């Protein structure tokens, strides 16, 4: 970066020169939460600039592999060895393949420093990772917002379930969530489209588990795959090719839903290829006045101004921008009076998996490829259950299907009969994944590299985080309960694995700019507003004070819609 825009010496912005680059609101990021901020601001009539560091991806038009058959992909979905060798990090992601690789950031395109192993999976394009998510959407419970206060790990959330409940409803009505009203306090019911259905073996598993293990409740996945046409999108066509982008609009993404809604208002200016360098802080006014942007193609530096700024760049990039936004008032990063910016990085614990085969229901099959399975919400350390060696708990997701091919041990290993056997419907199998809550630890943190910079002149992020004893103990329990449920339901050949994967690969990175009641120990207040800079809001994963064990995107979206509503109220009251 040139000295002229060195953040500590930034000139105050005055006069007409800034007019063409002035907006009511700036949203940094166009993914899961940025798309929501854009839609809400635009629909309320605010002229909104949405900055996206990646290229534009237009719904349907820019999904080049969406309708490709396996034989139309040269490597039938697999990636050339060269790409995998050049990308050891992103290659670990289950969704990274020949048909999806264009939606992922390659390792060398945006390096970072792993002080301890951390797999940072990134999607830089309009829509961000909302194109690539697993689409599971469970509300947080009342106790999830209270856990920190109860066991003293992490600061107390400044909000409770009742504060977010109407916003969960608001978001669900727009995005469309298929699900069953199960009446479980761990995952409160929402505004649901008709649920999908469990297949025979999943139903059998559900009946056995719910009967054998009181407190454990297997339910159909709640997912943003649409079981009926909703707001002009869908329904899901049961192809299960979601990560390529859906030409039917069968699941929620920014590209298919929030960004088109924002566009329709005429109030959105979307600027792709815009890497945000920092937020401009005006020392006299005591507020942020805009953002510094580097055009990723031309490297040209420019500034944009607005009354209110939403930072939704995706957890780690949000914190990178804030850490890089220094001034005399904030030498350690914007709004960082507390010193917690960058700290308390968390990611869900997805290490433990189990697998089994089921003998039975041989005469039953299914039609279509269901993009989901079952979900088992948290049951540990709830009600009468009390674990001695770990706090909090975990959920499970899983699904059953029949293997393709039915070759027996004694069948000939090649030839006509072998080929016929391979076309038969094979045994039922089921995979189970545990999804554990991760505790907030101060030492798990990110910081700016003092000497290494990326191709845009931004400092590289150094990531220093790890699992600790609570997570290790939880893995053991997940493996044990997964296996005992499979056994109880009559599964055979049960295998359990601890992938030992580092943090990051669950792609649920959270924290590093957390919400809290006390400005001394948190960055953001109960409406996602910076304690110290009232016109800057953060409502992506960075704001999270704890992780619970639900998939997080629904909560980011609800927090964002609520935060925009609050920001507009504050603007109207001329508080910001």
């Amino acid at each position: 970066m040139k000295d002229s825009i060195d953040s500590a010496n930034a000139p105050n912005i005055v006069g007409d020169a800034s007019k063409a680059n002035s907006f009511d609101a700036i949203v940094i990021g166009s993914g899961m939460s940025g798309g929501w901020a854009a839609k809400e601001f635009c629909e309320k009539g605010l002229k909104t600039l949405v900055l996206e560091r990646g290229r534009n991806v237009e719904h349907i038009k820019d999904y080049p592999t969406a309708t490709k058959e396996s034989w139309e992909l040269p490597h039938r979905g697999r990636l050339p060895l060269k790409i995998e060798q050049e990308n050891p990090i992103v290659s670990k992601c289950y969704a990274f393949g020949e048909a999806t690789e264009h939606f992922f950031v390659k390792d060398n395109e945006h390096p970072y420093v792993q002080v301890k192993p951390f797999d940072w999976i990134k999607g830089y394009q309009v829509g961000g990772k909302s194109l690539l998510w697993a689409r599971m959407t469970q509300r947080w419970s009342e106790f999830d917002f209270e856990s920190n206060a109860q066991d003293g790990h992490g600061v107390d959330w400044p909000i409770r379930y009742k504060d977010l409940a109407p916003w969960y409803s608001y978001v669900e009505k727009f995005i469309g969530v298929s699900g069953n009203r199960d009446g479980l306090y761990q995952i409160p019911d929402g505004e649901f489209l008709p649920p999908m259905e469990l297949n025979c073996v999943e139903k059998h598993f559900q009946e056995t588990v719910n009967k054998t293990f009181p407190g454990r409740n297997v339910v159909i996945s709640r997912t943003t795959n649409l079981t009926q046409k909703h707001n002009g999108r869908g329904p899901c066509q049961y192809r299960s090719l979601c990560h390529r982008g859906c030409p039917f609009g069968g699941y929620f993404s920014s590209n298919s839903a929030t960004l088109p809604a924002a566009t329709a208002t005429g109030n959105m200016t979307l600027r792709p290829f815009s890497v945000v360098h920092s937020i401009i802080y005006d020392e006299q006014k005591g507020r942020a006045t805009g953002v510094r942007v580097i055009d990723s193609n031309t490297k040209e530096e420019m500034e944009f101004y607005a009354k209110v700024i939403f930072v939704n760049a995706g957890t780690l990039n949000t914190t990178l921008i804030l850490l890089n936004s220094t001034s005399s008032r904030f030498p350690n990063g914007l709004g960082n009076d507390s010193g917690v910016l960058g700290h308390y990085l968390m990611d869900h614990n997805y290490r433990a998996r189990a697998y089994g085969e089921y003998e039975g229901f041989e005469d039953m099959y299914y039609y279509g490829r269901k993009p989901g399975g079952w979900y088992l919400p948290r049951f540990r350390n709830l009600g009468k259950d009390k674990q001695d060696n770990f706090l909090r708990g975990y959920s499970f997701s899983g699904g059953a299907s029949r293997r393709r091919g039915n070759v027996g041990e004694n069948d000939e290993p090649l030839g006509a009969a072998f080929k016929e056997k391979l076309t038969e419907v094979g045994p039922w199998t089921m995979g189970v994944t545990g999804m554990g809550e991760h505790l907030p630890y101060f030492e798990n943190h990110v910081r700016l590299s003092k000497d290494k910079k990326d191709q845009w002149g931004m400092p590289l992020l150094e990531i220093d985080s790890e699992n600790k004893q609570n997570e290790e103990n939880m893995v053991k329990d997940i493996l044990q309960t997964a296996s005992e449920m499979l056994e109880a339901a009559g599964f055979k050949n049960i295998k359990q694995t601890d992938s030992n994967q580092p943090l990051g690969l669950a792609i649920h990175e959270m924290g590093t700019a957390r919400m809290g009641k006390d400005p001394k120990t948190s960055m953001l207040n109960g409406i996602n507003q910076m304690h110290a800079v009232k016109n800057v809001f953060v409502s992506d994963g960075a704001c999270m004070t704890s992780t619970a064990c639900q998939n997080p995107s629904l909560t980011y979206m609800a927090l964002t819609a609520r935060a925009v509503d609050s920001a507009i109220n504050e603007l109207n009251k001329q508080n910001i």
Partner: protein
Amino acid sequence: MNRREAISAVGFLVGGTVIGAQAFLTGCSSKPEGPSSTGLLTNDQISFMNEVGETILPTTPSSPGAKEAKVGEFMDIMLKDCYSPADQKIFMDGIATLDKASESKYDKSFVKLKPEEKHELLLTVDAEASKYKDSKKTDDPENHYYSMMKQLTLLGYFTSEIGATKALNHVAVPGHYEACVPLKPGQKAWS
């Protein structure tokens, strides 16, 4: 199906771990040992591999075989782009080894054998490859050439248009989902 499932399906079908799967799943930190050439297999070798494929998955009354699905051409692409130089060499040497076995047993090159002779010869090689993992010495290469040929045949065939739509039951856009439906007699698996 995700990648892990895709691999376990192939691994199950051929009764072993999938060659290259470690790199496939986790990426690989080592650099390739040398530049990989383009068009690794000659036309004759592609024809040879089509014959091997056809012997593993022959044309049957219900569907065309691996040769019509062009598994030889598929192997050429996969070998070049998705296999390490070491595995490429094992595979290429394997073609010669297999042909030599054919010459010494039948006095004819593999492609000239009658279908039943090809079948008989590959049964022997298949058994040898199955035992290889357990009997191989520490310094021996990880993979047996025939295991690669068989895996690529199965993968290439069932993801080809012929394999997916004629041998298996293929519905590109199911349109709806039925959770529990009776399996009809003789119904093929979904692709």
